[in-house]
């Protein structure tokens, strides 16, 4: 568990609160804020106070599952299908908190994927796909007590440019030619748009015109797609931070709260921007497989276990780490085993990802319905507790946990291996020892007290979700700085402002080692040692005690080489003084900041 307190209210959320306060004319207390601003007034139900819940059209659009897209690729998206899903969501899922019905790419394209624009270069609903128009659809969604979402790619779509003479709505003298660069450099994940030049004031006007159109239609949510850095793009042409900022500004003045969600594989290095200007960001590529099912485990549900941990600290009210759609409700069409479906739902819930399904809600099977509507699981996702993160190394068997405000822990066991395996959650990794009562959340069963740990057999790709209530005693820890240890091979001490004592041991590669001496414990046994480390990508390291054989553990990426994270690894120690060695072996290992060792078992 990370020790930093979870009471962060990101700036963008506060800004949203201000907007609401002004428009609604109400005030409320603001939770204590870390800081960039101290603006006091607030309002209830700000945008993205909790991870949003809903449905997206894209998952079925992307699939080759027989019958889903009879009119060509992505043709699932139609007014009839959206309204059918709206009705089903209202009937089956709304009471559990699902509220957004999100129309994804293609609403302005015909069946052959040809785009249409209005006279101001704004996307225009395809009259065959959406015969009633986008406003009417939003009205129908609202009539069911739900919220409506819409979609755009970032940039000025090439088809909207015209010859550069297309006028911008409500912007005297501005044309599309004014808002792009003279060389018509392209942007976004598909290079399907011209990069907008925000040094020209007309550019903001164009964004304002789109935002106003959505607000007028009544949309509550916008997915801005292909955003860089991210969307598999880097470099100046793909820096869409100004676009995102412009969108937030436009939304602020459009007169309707609109949730702004960014896609896809957003660059971790710009997380501050995403937090500042949006309400959620996709941390990975599409979860869909673009195959004969909606998803498959390997392509690419399972990536999220590796990629989510680095982002954990950045999620909170106002903006969340988006793991993409949750497709666990349809059974065979999902493309997953039962165990995989549960693990998928478990990770999304505990990581506080938005919970939006891409399933056919009219055809949920009973198991899928139970996964999507488990109130305890939804409660974990929607609670004020922080997102869970791995407390063990990112090995095939791993444990994730979050400390809840009431002192309990949300603990998930995962077996990512292709065969059944047992997984153990050791209470030491939660900071205590002795007894704890355990509730099996999915199975809705109290398992009673467990001493020191719980072990469960998990199917291949399986999971367990527990609420653990400590009844034992808090552990006392001894800290050891890695840089005080004995270095060998290439290992060297490096400065690190985020590290304790400002230093860490780096250059642990091809034989580089650091041995921490004088690790004194009261009694022999297996200790969960908390390892604070820095690693810009996922790396493995051999951990051993007293010169014995090392066990290789994979440490998840901390996102960059300036961020410290920590995990617990089991090490067998003897009573008295021990040495603990971190050995890169033949590869490249993470930098080690320090270790904390329980004083006794």
């Amino acid at each position, binding site marked *: 568990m990370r020790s930093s307190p979870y009471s962060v209210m990101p700036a963008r959320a506060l800004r949203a609160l201000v907007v609401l306060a002004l428009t609604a004319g109400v005030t409320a207390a603001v939770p204590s804020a870390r800081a960039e601003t101290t603006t006091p007034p607030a309002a209830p139900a700000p945008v993205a106070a909790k991870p949003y819940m809903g449905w997206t059209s894209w998952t079925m659009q992307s699939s080759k599952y027989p019958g889903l897209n009879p009119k060509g690729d992505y043709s699932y998206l139609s007014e009839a299908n959206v309204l059918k899903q709206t009705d089903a969501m209202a009937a089956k899922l709304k009471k559990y908190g699902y509220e957004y019905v999100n129309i994804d790419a293609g609403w302005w394209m015909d069946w052959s994927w040809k785009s249409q624009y209005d006279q101001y270069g704004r996307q225009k609903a395809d009259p065959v796909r959406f015969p009633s128009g986008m406003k009417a659809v939003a009205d129908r969604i609202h009539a069911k007590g739900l919220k409506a979402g819409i979609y755009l790619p970032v940039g000025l779509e090439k088809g909207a440019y015209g010859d550069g003479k297309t006028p911008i709505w409500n912007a005297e003298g501005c044309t599309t030619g004014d808002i792009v660069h003279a060389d018509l450099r392209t942007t976004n994940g598909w290079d399907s748009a011209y990069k907008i030049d925000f040094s020209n004031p007309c550019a903001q006007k164009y964004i304002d015109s789109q935002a106003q159109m959505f607000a007028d239609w009544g949309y509550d949510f916008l997915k801005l797609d292909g955003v860089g850095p991210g969307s598999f793009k880097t470099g100046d042409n793909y820096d869409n931070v100004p676009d995102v900022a412009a969108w937030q500004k436009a939304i602020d003045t459009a007169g309707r709260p609109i949730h702004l969600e960014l896609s896809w594989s957003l660059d971790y290095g710009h997380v501050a921007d995403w937090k500042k200007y949006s309400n959620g960001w996709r941390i990975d590529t599409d979860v869909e497989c673009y195959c004969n099912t909606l998803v498959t485990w390997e392509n690419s549900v399972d990536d999220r276990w590796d990629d989510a941990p680095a982002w954990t600290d950045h999620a909170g009210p106002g903006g969340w780490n988006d793991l993409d759609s949750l497709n666990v409700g349809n059974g065979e069409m999902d493309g997953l085993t039962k165990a995989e479906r549960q693990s998928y739902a478990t990770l999304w819930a505990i990581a506080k990802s938005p919970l939006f399904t891409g399933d056919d809600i009219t055809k949920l099977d009973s198991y899928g319905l139970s996964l999507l509507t488990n109130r305890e699981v939804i409660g974990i996702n929607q609670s004020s507790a922080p997102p869970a993160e791995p407390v063990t190394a990112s090995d095939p068997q791993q444990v994730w946990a979050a400390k809840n405000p009431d002192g309990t822990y949300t603990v998930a066991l995962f077996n990512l291996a292709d065969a*059944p395996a047992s997984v153990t959650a050791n209470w030491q990794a939660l900071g205590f020892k002795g007894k704890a009562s355990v509730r099996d959340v999915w199975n809705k069963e109290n398992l009673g007290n467990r001493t020191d740990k719980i072990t469960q*057999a998990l199917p291949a790709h399986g999971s367990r979700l527990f609420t653990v209530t400590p009844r034992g005693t808090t552990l006392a820890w001894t800290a050891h700085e890695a840089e005080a240890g004995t270095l060998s091979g290439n290992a060297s001490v490096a400065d690190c402002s985020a590290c304790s004592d400002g230093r860490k041991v780096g250059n642990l590669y091809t034989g580089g080692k650091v041995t921490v001496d004088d690790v004194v414990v009261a009694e022999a046994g297996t200790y969960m040692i908390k390892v604070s480390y820095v690693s810009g990508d996922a790396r493995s390291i051999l951990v051993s005690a007293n010169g014995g054989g*090392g066990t290789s553990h994979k440490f998840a990426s901390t996102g960059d080489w300036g961020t410290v994270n920590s995990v617990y690894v089991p090490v067998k120690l003897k009573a008295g003084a021990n040495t603990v060695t971190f050995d890169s072996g033949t590869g490249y290992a993470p930098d080690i900041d320090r270790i904390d060792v329980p004083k006794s078992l």
Partner: protein
Amino acid sequence: MDTRPSEPSRRTVLTTAGLTAALAALPVFKASAAPARPGEVPPPADRHQLWWQAPGDEGSLIEQGLPIGNGRIGALASNDPGRELLLITDATMWTGGLNDTLDQDGQFPYGRSDFGSFTLLAKLTVDIPDHDLGGVNGYRRTLDLAQGLVTSSYVRSGVTYRREMYASRPDDVIVLRFTQSGGGRHTGSITLTGTHGEHPTAAESFGATLPNGLRYGAAVKARGTGGKVTVNGTRIDFAGCKDLTVVITAGTNYAPDADSGFRDPALEPERLARTKVRAAAAESTDALRRTHVADYRALYGRLDLSLGTSTAEQRELDTWERLHARSRDPEPDPELEAAYLQFGRYLMICGSRDSLPVALQGLWLDGNDPDWMGDYHTDINIQMNYWMADRTGLSPCFDAFTDYCVAQLPSWNDLTRRLFNDPRNRYRNSSGKNAGWAVAFSTNPYGGSGWWWHPAGNAWLCTTLWEHYEYTGSREHLKKIYPLLKGACEFWEARLLTITLPGTSKEVLVDDKDWSPEHGPQDAKGITYAQEVVWMLFGNYCTAAAELGRDTDYADTIASLRRKLYLPQVSPTTGWLEEWMSPDNLGETTHRHLSPLINLFPGDRIRPDGSTPADLVAGATALLTARGMESFGWANAWRSLCWARLKNADNAYQLVVNNLRPSVDGSNGTAFNLFDIYEVERGRGIFQIDANFGTPAAMVEMLLYSRPGHIELLPALPDAWAASGHIRGVPARGGFEVDLRWRDGKPTEARIRSVGGRTTTIAYGEVSRTVTLRPGASVTLKDFSR
């Protein structure tokens, strides 16, 4: 199945004529009288329980399934709460046939239809959808080595469910028992199917015929309490059952008789299977279990072993974690190591009784196409499988190997006569003479051979059979194997070449062009392996003829040949015992096979006790050292046995520890289910059972060395086991059994019991004494200080 009447062949005429010989032709799968039902026996202490916290993956049962077997039928079980899967085998379920041709290069064909392959017989699933693993808690799975039971248990909605399974030899069935406490119910379905494209027609049995004419069949019967069990098309449904018992059996019409083409034409396996499951299902489940446990323990209980005490922390770990800890931590885990030995015994009891002997994978398969056909390899593997039987008190399990060789002999004779001197055979006798019998590197159960001819294979099979006689003193066994020994001698009498040793006038007998198993040149004369093993064979034969009072003249002939056999020397170039009658190293230094050391182990010619020239011991030691400490499981086991013979406890023990390493991604080592994994190529490991038998044999050899007339206590006791321990009921060559206790590295008590032997020396270190006992009598020795 071809049912056309055929004209009586020479074969059938011979069978009818030779009614006395027909005794050997009884099918393996046969009707039997109701077994005796023993009373309740208290369960033994649970020191030798293996346990796990996860079920087996259906796609990886060879590494994760738990084996059961009654010596004839076996199964690997997943123990998954929601879906129990059993992959069922019968030792005789083989494709292929006599395979009496040679390819152009002189090899026997080695395909699944000509040579044949061991293959699965049936697959059984018991689906209980509500008990999906994702919805149960506290899952645990155990293999109770002391009782021969596989169990699994879990809690679902407050109810504890327990599942137990075993393969009973007395009832000749596999029994699955599903129970619960706390008001639970079992609802689901049972499906029994074949794995060879059979069309299911009934739920409770099926029968079919392989392309080679082997008939096979299987049957299942289920019985529940408190609910309903109904046959529904091709599956059996059960609903609301408090308890459920499922009884399965399977078999073939294989008969171990060359004259009948290895078939019993009258046997209908499906019908017999149905009869057997009906009879067993009529018994109470308690009676079935009691009968099985008593039968199993009668064998298992013959040897008791303690290598010391493990720590409380080690005991807390499940078996898979414990293997990891043993590989990671420097501390020995004596109870785990002893359990590994006992697991080998479990496999032997389950795998080798009343049917064919244990092949490369024993009785256990996870598919129809095992590597190397799951066959009998005659250049170490089958011999290693049976080194353990006598050494660990399982002499009755040895009989399957003996019976196999006896039943195959007529075909082996026939093929040798017809094909050994074939001009395509690179190892043919240049003398032009041909007699007796030989085998190839691979053999099947139909008298057939595969791959290259293996001239010295006959001698190695014989010396292995002979060793069983040395342990048991059984004249019945000696009579059975005598024709094999004699035929092998006749083969070598015809084959050996007389040469003059260079630089001398001394004439010696050497092996013709040959291949030191799988290593080096394929045209080397006088390879060490053959010289040594033929020397052993000739010696054994002379003793056998004398004991049985037969063939005195021929024994004299063989004795004189033996005196003329060239015996290998140490290379002046490498300092190693030569492998190819050449001073040069013509192969790979760290090659897996130790063929030139065959007279260090299993033979006794090379002894580190002063009776063997020191340079020979040094040469053998140097060769063994060069071979290294890292190889495949069976190769490590053989190395360990050799180091034990050289009284190097550290090396012998380290090789055992190396074999206990957890296998990861197919690497050499021990799998989740304790099967030994052989890394065929990077990332692909297969199960090969020889190390599961060879490693325990090495562990015993570290505690007790014996040869007729001589027993040594604790010849290579490693520090890891030195503190205290015992081995009770360990057989010694020469016809004795020993109960041995030790403390602080020294024996504290040794009880020697004669099982037919008369006189032997008992040695510990420099101390030696001679005891003479009547059969059945025993003596206890306590003072080893002088």
